[in-house]
């Protein structure tokens, strides 16, 4: 399997009483009260250093994403980060996984076709092109996209980007949301016909259908681990079976929070407060921000209300503030402990979910730089090598840059 390090680039120093004093971590946390630009400059540099360290330590890929007005992650243009990462990993067998530029809010979407092509050429064909729909917070509240139009805009932007990469000739795009008289993207990607496309999703049927229809990799990105994830991924694989599509595990991606220390006890001591910071502060978001009416199309809305999906998710969130380290690990929200504990739990999770493209969040909440490097170091040396062989006996990762599909030689010497 392929394992990539995901980074959110969070604010690492929110006040202890943040969740009592402020309405939300996303959209309306007041910069003037909470933000410090000098510190943020340090965070960006640490984030880049951590991802580059992961690349040098043998990680298969390094991931960044896009969020706006959000103290848990604020890379408003992930491609600014991606360009530094592409340059810094020049010559290494590591994928640049952009998870990625948000399609409905980038105007015109050919901007993404251009920036991703820049990254693919700069990296020598190592790009994975993530194509997120975007959360309601980012798209409707921060960028002003009309909720009922977000998904339609997304589909149109996706079709435009793929055509911009693959059309042999200059073309006019006469869409509903975008009209461009002469599309002729410079540069085009090295990878042909285009870089692998990953579609991040939160379990909605429309997104599975979309990913399957276009033969893209579907990535379930949430923070609640394989036990919660299984409900969604089982549904996904049933859907794939019904459609008669090859059940290649590399067709799916999953994000998991992971924290490794020498022993289980030490993991608790080192990581508990950062895990609690993540779930209590970084995910402090009011429910009404998640689903402004129209963000879900009518069928998804009906499905989630009839099945009580929203309510069960909400109930689960309500319980988390009281969790201790043991609860987080027992419920597998976070996979944490000694290398042996982590590799057993992770292997189990990956098998249960049938996931070939694993993303691990190795920087969590308020984790300081040194501890993050330690986590990366232990993960890449003591955990990752034990998982790499999974799935490769039978399946090829068609959703990975072609030149990197062979097993990566760990380049510890490069450190």
């Amino acid at each position, binding site marked *: 399997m392929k394992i990539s390090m995901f980074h959110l680039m969070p604010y690492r120093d929110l006040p202890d009483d943040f969740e009592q004093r402020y309405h939300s971590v996303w959209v309306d946390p007041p910069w003037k009260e909470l933000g410090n630009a000098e510190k943020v400059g340090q965070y960006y540099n640490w984030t880049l250093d951590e991802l580059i360290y992961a690349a040098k330590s043998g990680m298969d890929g390094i991931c960044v994403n896009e969020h706006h007005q959000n103290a848990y992650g604020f890379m408003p243009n992930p491609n600014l980060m991606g360009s530094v990462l592409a340059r810094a990993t020049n010559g290494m067998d590591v994928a640049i996984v952009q998870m990625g530029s948000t399609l409905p809010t980038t105007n015109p979407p050919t901007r993404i076709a251009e920036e991703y092509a820049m990254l693919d050429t700069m990296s020598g064909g190592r790009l994975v092109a993530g194509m997120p729909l975007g959360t309601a917070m980012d798209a409707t509240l921060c960028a002003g996209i009309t*909720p009922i*139009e977000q998904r339609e805009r997304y589909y149109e932007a996706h079709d435009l980007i793929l055509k911009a990469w693959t059309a042999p000739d200059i073309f006019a795009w006469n869409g509903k949301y975008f009209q461009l008289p002469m599309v002729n993207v410079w540069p085009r990607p090295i990878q042909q016909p285009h870089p692998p496309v990953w579609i991040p999703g939160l379990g909605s049927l429309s997104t599975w259908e979309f990913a399957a229809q276009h033969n893209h990799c579907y990535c379930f990105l949430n923070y609640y681990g394989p036990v919660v994830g299984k409900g969604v991924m089982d549904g996904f694989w049933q859907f794939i079976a019904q459609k008669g599509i090859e059940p290649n595990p590399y067709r799916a991606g999953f994000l998991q929070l992971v924290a490794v220390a020498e022993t289980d006890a030490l993991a608790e001591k080192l990581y508990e407060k950062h895990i609690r910071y993540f779930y209590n502060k970084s995910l402090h978001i009011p429910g009404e*921000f998640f689903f402004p009416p*129209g963000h879900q199309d*009518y069928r998804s809305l009906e499905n989630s209300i009839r099945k009580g999906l929203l309510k069960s998710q909400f109930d689960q969130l309500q319980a988390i503030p009281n969790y201790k380290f043991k609860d987080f690990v027992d419920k597998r929200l976070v996979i944490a402990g000694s290398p042996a504990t982590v590799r057993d739990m992770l292997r189990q999770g990956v098998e249960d979910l049938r996931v070939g493209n694993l993303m691990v969040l190795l920087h969590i909440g308020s984790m300081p730089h040194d501890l993050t490097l330690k986590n990366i170091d232990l993960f890449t040396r003591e955990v990752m090598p034990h998982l790499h062989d999974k799935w490769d006996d039978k399946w090829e990762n068609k959703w990975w840059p072609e030149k990197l599909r062979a097993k990566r030689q760990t380049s510890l010497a490069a450190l």
Partner: protein
Amino acid sequence: MVAVQERTISVWENKIKPKVQVAGSGPPVVFLHGAYGLTWDPFLDELARNFTVYAPEHPGTTWGDPDGIKPLDNLWDLVLYYDEVFDQLGLQNPAVVGHSFGGMVAAEIAASYPHRVGQLVLLCPIGLWRDDAPVKNWMIMPPEDVIKAVFHDPTGPLAQQMLAIPEDEKAQQDAQIRTTWALACTGRFIWPIPDKGLKKRIHRITSSTLLVWGKSDKLVPPVYAQEFASRIKNSRIAMIDQAGHVPQLEQLGEVSTLVRDFLKS
């Protein structure tokens, strides 16, 4: 209680099939509902004593026709759509009463087709914007906050009725789906700020216009009454005590008399 008749009409090349509730007798009055969907209420009962009330549901908000929103991309389409709805109902130049979102739609119709609207009644309409008095974004407000902003008395029976949850689970789900989708469909024309150019067109309104505003409206602040009145040539304002964003229900007797007398004048 008057007998309310339900009609389904077919508009926009049969792509949109809204339900229209019709009741009463006398000169025609079209009622355009707010963002939460249409409920036949005592104010409409009162209107129907003297007028034939036509209350169409906004496109997409009709139960069973959720895709009715798809053919209409923007406000221009919506105004043209209502021109067709009036034709379908056989109405030349009816009086139009619009509440909140429906008030904005009524004002847009009257500005686009000044001769199509006989008289105009706007109950706490949206459609204009002042930075110093922003219209609240009800699409991202929890229900308990909406109640506080909408009602003069958020603990009164009207407010409680709006918060009440049906006992039957299926009915509860239906209500949640219906309300959410009504907000989604009307949201297409107002997100994220309900200022879509009415200020450029409002001078074209020639209908005599009554503006009704609850003095305690915390959703769309009462300062907007003057904003509308100063731009509509033939208009007057009625400010209602002890009423918020739904003055026609919180002060049913006073407002229905006001509206009746205005429409009869």
